């Protein structure tokens, strides 16, 4: 139950929704599946005056465009992504990353746009505050930070936990953003500020409209892993997305994109690890060495009870296995 009053309007089109958001000047929020927003409102971390429902806008099915890229409506439910035969066939990493989000009910309700625009999370933040007799932290407008008590500088080290964003960045995807001035397109990577206090580079009246995934290059292969304690209904302790391009010889790595999610204020792209994979033959020793360096490069924030050491170990082991999985997939006949 949400204990404050707010108003509600249903937008007929995404343009309508943008107009309403613009009119309310930051006091309104878009409501897609509500699976992230409504719990935050229940905890009173977010208190909008008005919700603009996107629920009446029918998303288009994912489609392949003439240039081989794929367009996915931002309003698509996650369940429709994990079950889409086009996505499972062409970009299985994306279908897999949607498949591991939350629970079936969350995937039936939650949308792609909402998943990308979800709030960053912190154990201290994500609880009901009315019976918690503590002063608000930086993220809630206060002047302290509970998990990092020596942090006195108005910095928030909450983590961004989307499972899908790392996969999209590894796939070099772009998002189309609709605002009052029209549309603009940026790489998914550029959507994030890296600041836990304001994680997204989106204006008050801007909404995601679609995600575009470029055609996969020749020799493309992928690996994806979400580390959890239980294996279901859980945010990741670390999420690993790997896209490799294997050269004609079947041995050398021509290109690599490695992204780690759920360990910092934004998904982290491991540029140094990517460079050290390029142009080399990928044997086990090499993978182990790159994974060890990469776990330092990822520089995870301790979160949800996991220490930095633990998360680095987790990334080291699972990144190596995920890269090996990607290579194995390239060598086996059915991708």
């Amino acid at each position, binding site marked *: *139950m*949400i*204990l*404050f*009053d*707010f*108003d*509600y309007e249903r937008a007929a089109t995404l343009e309508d929704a943008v107009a309403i958001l613009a009119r309310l000047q930051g006091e309104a929020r878009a*409501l897609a599946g*509500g*699976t992230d927003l*409504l*719990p935050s409102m*229940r905890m009173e971390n977010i*208190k909008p*005056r*008005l*919700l603009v*429902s996107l*629920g009446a806008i029918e998303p288009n099915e994912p489609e392949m465009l003439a240039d081989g890229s794929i367009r996915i409506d931002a309003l698509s439910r996650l*369940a429709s992504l994990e079950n889409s035969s086009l996505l499972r066939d062409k970009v299985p990493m994306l279908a897999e990353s949607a498949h591991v989000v*939350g*629970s*079936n*009910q*969350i995937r*039936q*309700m939650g949308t792609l746009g909402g998943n990308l625009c979800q709030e960053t999370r912190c154990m201290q933040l994500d609880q009901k505050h009315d019976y918690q007799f503590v002063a608000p932290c930086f993220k809630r407008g206060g002047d302290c930070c509970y998990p990092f008590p020596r942090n006195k500088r108005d910095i928030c080290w909450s983590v961004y936990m989307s499972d899908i964003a790392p996969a999209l960045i590894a796939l070099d995807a772009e998002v189309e953003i609709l605002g009052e001035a029209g549309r603009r397109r940026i790489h998914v990577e550029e959507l994030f500020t890296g600041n836990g206090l304001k994680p997204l580079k989106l204006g008050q009246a801007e909404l995601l409209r679609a995600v575009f995934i470029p055609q996969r290059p020749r020799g493309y292969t992928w690996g994806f892993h979400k580390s959890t304690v239980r294996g*279901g*209904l859980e945010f990741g302790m670390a999420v690993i997305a790997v896209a490799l391009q294997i050269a004609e010889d079947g041995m050398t790595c021509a290109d690599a994109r490695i992204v780690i999610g759920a360990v910092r204020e934004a998904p982290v792209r491991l540029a140094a690890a990517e460079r050290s994979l390029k142009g080399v033959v990928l044997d086990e020793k090499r993978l182990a060495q790159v994974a060890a360096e990469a776990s330092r490069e990822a520089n995870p924030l301790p979160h949800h009870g996991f220490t930095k050491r633990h998360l680095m170990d987790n990334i080291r082991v699972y990144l190596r296995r995920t890269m090996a999985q990607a290579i194995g997939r390239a060598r086996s006949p059915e991708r």
Partner: protein
Amino acid sequence: MGIALSDLAKGGVAAKTKSRTRLISLCVNGEWHEVAVKPRDMLVDVIRDAIGLTGTKASCESGICGACTVLVEDRPVLGCITLAVECEGKQVQTVEGLADGEKLSGIQEAFLDQGAVQCGFCTSGMLMSATALLRRNPKPSRQDINKALEGNLCRCTGYNSIVDAVLQASAQGGVKAVMK
């Protein structure tokens, strides 16, 4: 229904915005209901308190446990994080809609046969998730069942009897009724 639910629950919280109460109609288990709701009223509260169907439970009220699962347009959703206004004009099915009069549905019988109900708090949500699964996939594997029920927590049974019940209801053989 003259007053909205949240008026009753307001307690001492001062409202910042005065929101409009609206009349919405929704079809629950084949019957249309007109209810007065405020934007902040959740579907589970409207089903329980305004419509009076208390089979659907509210427990964590934050989208985690699945006790509040109902079907909206045949999709299993969480009533505790769904605004009732979002369901205007929609078809909702709750656990009360599974039985045909006194005759229980196959999945309900299977839950009894397997002893898959202990305290019963999770049961209505489990039944709705299982019903949605069997409609979409009449012959699920054990793994399919685990995945479909991952959003429904049970503190009593240890889950095995529940998975067995879904297998039994899917008539694939291999599970014997233990409570008969």
